């Protein structure tokens, strides 16, 4: 009986002791002049390019060249 009570008390002590370990800091650590927001992913990261930077660059370059009517109409 006493052994069970000690075990229960020990379990409660451990639970109370580590309760704050899962808590994440709520305040941003401010660094002057450094971006504080969420990280962004590159434009070619998601579908339809799925990380293929070369393919994305080729697509953008093609669209870019279509703005040049000297080349578009020839």
């Amino acid at each position, binding site marked *: 009986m006493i052994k069970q009570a000690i075990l229960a008390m020990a379990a409660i002590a451990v639970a109370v002791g580590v309760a704050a370990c899962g808590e994440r800091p709520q305040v941003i650590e401010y660094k002057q002049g450094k971006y504080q927001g969420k990280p962004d992913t590159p434009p070619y990261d998601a579908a339809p390019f799925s990380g293929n930077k070369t393919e994305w660059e080729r697509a953008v370059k093609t669209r870019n060249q279509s*703005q040049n009517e000297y080349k578009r109409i020839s």
Partner: protein
Amino acid sequence: MARMKFLCDAERCIECNGCVTACKQEHDIPWGVNRRRVVTINDGVPGERSISVACMHCSDAPCMAVCPVDCFYRTEEGIVLHDKDLCIGCGYCFYACPFGAPQFPQAGAFGVRGKMDKCTFCAGGPEANNSDAEYKKYGRNRLAEGKLPACAEMCATKALLGGDSDVLSDIYRERVTNRAARGTPSMPPWGWDTAYGRPEAPKQPAAPPGGAKS
């Protein structure tokens, strides 16, 4: 790839406001917020010029320098974006911007100023690409679809160009050469010196020691 820029050719802009409409439509921009607008100088006078103005995504962006909560960042393509979750709507960026790009939605009965909104070069913001959250906060992410800004792609006279700066420079150079052949002068691209700086002048070699003084 070099870096993304806008170029407005004042010789070609006809003040149709197609770029403004394309931007509004593409991103569902609310009433009172204009990410892009057309400014006309000497309106009604012979020789008037119109320019399409929005965030130029400056090389050394003053908005980034003055933001008290540091919510601005620059992507590897050179596009200046910001995190709306951090923005406090203080308006410092509006005072710092030479192009008047930052916009503030007026919401509520007392004219409370909302979070800053500006041109994203159709590149969204710091949310998952092409997600609902990104669309609601920043508008459509055309760049992630392999497209260029809607305003530039919709421009009927191709006065407004957007994209890789090397390609834009080549296009504009070709235009200037063609105009020069017809005897029409061209102006330097509007706002480029302000946004991207002048190219550095080549350094003069140091005078040899013991040389003549004048």
